[in-house]
């Protein structure tokens, strides 16, 4: 499989979950495990461009697929070392506290914005229903996703007024 632009060839035990393969075999510990019932979404990555919960997919199911994790996200943006607008917006809007849910939350938001480049507050909230955050109360996450949406539409990482 390809992960964050790098090809990997590994033998895996069938029971190895994708998230454990990423973390333990590939050392990509940016993707976290928060539950065992696919509720929390902390483990969200993209497989072939769609968000999935990597704790509810076998590594072997990702054979031949393209995986993107939080650690490869910034490189998909301007190629000049900037953060992805979602990462920048989460930072600016204080959309994270402990940061444990953040990789999954950002990867879920990336999918949301791919489907809906200009979501309302409600659409952001519903689009992120598969991700739990215990610190922020979500309000600043909503703000960050909408701010990032503006930046992505404009193709810039410069800080932006948050839409009302």
């Amino acid at each position: 499989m390809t992960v964050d632009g790098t090809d990997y060839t590994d033998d895996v035990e069938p029971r190895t979950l994708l998230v454990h393969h990423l973390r333990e075999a590939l050392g990509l510990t940016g993707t976290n495990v928060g539950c065992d019932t696919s509720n929390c979404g902390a483990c969200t990555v993209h497989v072939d461009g769609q968000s999935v919960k990597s704790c509810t997919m076998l590594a072997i199911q990702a054979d031949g697929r393209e995986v993107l994790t939080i650690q490869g996200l910034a490189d998909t943006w301007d190629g000049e070392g900037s953060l992805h607008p979602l990462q920048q917006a989460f930072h600016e809007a204080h959309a994270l506290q402990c940061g444990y849910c953040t990789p999954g939350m950002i990867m879920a938001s990336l999918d949301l914005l791919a489907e809906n480049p200009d979501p309302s507050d409600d659409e952001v909230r519903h689009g992120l229903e598969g991700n739990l955050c215990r610190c922020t109360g979500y309000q600043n996450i909503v703000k960050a996703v909408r701010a990032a949406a503006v930046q992505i539409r404009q193709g810039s990482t410069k800080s932006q007024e948050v839409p009302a």
Partner: protein
Amino acid sequence: MTVIDDRPADVGGVGTAPWRKEDAHLVTGQTTWTDNLAPVGTLHMAFVRATMAHARIGSIDTSEAAGMPNVVGVFTGADFAEECPTLPCAWPVTPDMVHPAHPPIAVGKVRFAGDPVAVVVARDRASAVDAAETVLVDYEPLPAVVDMEQSLTDEVVLHEDEGTNKAFFFSMPTGADIDETFAGADVVVKRRFIQQRLLPTPIEPRAVLCIPQAASGDFTIYSATQIPHILRTMLAVVTGMPEHKIRVIAPDVGGGFGAKLQVTGEEVIALLVAKRLGRPVKWTETRSETNLTMHHGRGQIQDIEIAATKDGKLLGLKVDLLADMGAYLMLVTPGVPILGAFMYPAIYKMDAYRFNCTGVFTTKTPTDAYRGAGRPEATFAIERIMDELADELDMDPMELRKLNWITHEEFPYEMVAGLTYDSGNYEAATARAMELFDYEGLRAEQAQRRADGDRIQLGIGISTFTEMCGLAPSRVLGQLDYGAGGWEAATVRMLPSGKVQVVTGSSPHGQGHETTLSQITSSALGVPFDDIEVLHGDTQVSPMGLDTYGSRSLVVGGIALQKAAGKVVDKARKLAAHLLEASEDDIEFADGTFSVKGSPDASKSIQELALAIFAAHDYPEDMEPDLTGHAIFDPENFSYPHGTHLCAVEIDTETGHTSIRTYVAVDDVGKVINPQIVEGQVHGGIAQGIAQALYEGVVYDDDGNLVTGTLVDYLVPAAPDLPSFTTDRTETPAANELGVKGVGEAGTIASTPAVVNAVVDALRPYGVHDVEMPCTPERVWRAIQSGQKGGAQ
């Protein structure tokens, strides 16, 4: 990857909102969670846990597990009984408190579903889990004791050597004679409220890694903990190992909310297994294990009785608690309800108060601190019964509060419960909240909907709360028989190049210490925000500290830092006077520069002084060559944030579904270091309080099995389940060096009663006087049904 920050350069001092220093590694996944770490050769633990709530352990057959591939060892409670007979409880709340042994792995009996009975150690985690599945435990079942009142009959006793399920009885009568007060009152209202158990649910589960250094006998322990310092000391105390041979590191920690304020059996076992096998040993819990075994919060039955005149003047308050300890007393289990003892009178003036609390063992997961710890329970009960009293007196609930609260001219005010509130302005916060909320407009709409018999009814809930935080004055803790103090340590060190190193003894897990403490340092020393590093969470780097809980990091740790920075300034002033050949009294300090009064050109920047003292070529004879300040701050008093939270709910009376339409929070946390971080703390706190009011609750069946064992059954709200909050602040400085108050727990303490008061308010026309938490659609619907039959109370 670079963070773009094109904002003005003056952002970074006290009162500004620099973006957090913590974020860059968190938004890019370059994190160091404990579970990320595993040195070569690390062994992994999997615990075998009790599958029933209460049973005698017969035989434990570990033979199959021991023979499985990659398994290095299988241990049971007996293997550690001498090395660690019991986990610690640091808070014996009464001299005669029953304090049964709590072995890290059960010995003889299991007392809750999830109690560990064996541990398998293997070369990889999957092998450990596979082997743990094969351990056969022969149980002799005993009856579960799930209900607290049932437990107190002592028909079935958990800790047979103690002979009783009653852990303690704590009584605190203060003020005027309570019986006379109640006898003379026009109105007495009595209610029973149930504080359901909650799962704190940090999104990062617990994890621990212990790395032994065999030759030196040193142990390095990484743990997802709030309390590296306390953990280090307690590990030494409970195992008898030398404290100086144990180093605890809390790396990136993914939330705590009190649940990581604990010394757990798993941490102790990791240490003891690492010691025994001489190899690194690691354990990361699964979420199902979290639900089963990470300590729970709340779990109280509250009988509360309030006495007033017919005009609404409060006279006295009686509180009788049953507090669910669960199966064992953990680090501060008995102290949690006692923290609440001081908060029931809240912001209200009254002359008589009596608080009683009975701690009860049940065959359930132990309880302990969860965000607010004792104070949310107290605030809930008093704010709920204020609404009930208002209803009884046919008064507007806000008017009743105004009639009884301490007015801002009356501070400092000595409360009937013994605390002295240093500051507050309840009128200002309330006025601002009422304005933002449109209180009158919503009351009018409510009246209209009631008159129309609208399917959607509107309810308005008030919470005019205060709390005590900033734990804590050490002398007060001593009076309460707590086993430690409440001070905090800080060190500020000028580095040769003029950069600054700050070491704090408090240990963050999401609060933004690095940012906030940098701001304090930046303002105190006049150095740029970005020139400051903040070190924490490692007992070797930060040898003194009492960690993070009870909204203490700023009001205790921040003030320690302010004092330490002051010592640096004092030393630098002395050095500047020496180098500028002026009297110390003539040296002025502003914006990082020391100058001679009247000769502004004669000056030295603090950075120049840092280099000068490093070189040490020329410095005063009565000074050491060093610009370091170290301070320990032990507060004189608690911190008393307050505020007014107003909540409007809409209830679909056909289905019982509640949705929050408007939520306004005006908090007074004194002077604010970073408004963005403060707002974030308020948001998160409100969310957790709403979660208690509407969504969350631990459920056990009659046999003591945990029904809410996964996040499928324990409903943590996601983004669509919560509203946007309207927040604002008033600023009444606290009587401390920075004028600051704690903020970490305030939102959680305030919001639960605001929401439930709103739910009950919506349903009053149906004869409803209470809805048990969480206010599920079914409970609301049933309240309406029985209320219409005249039954709900």
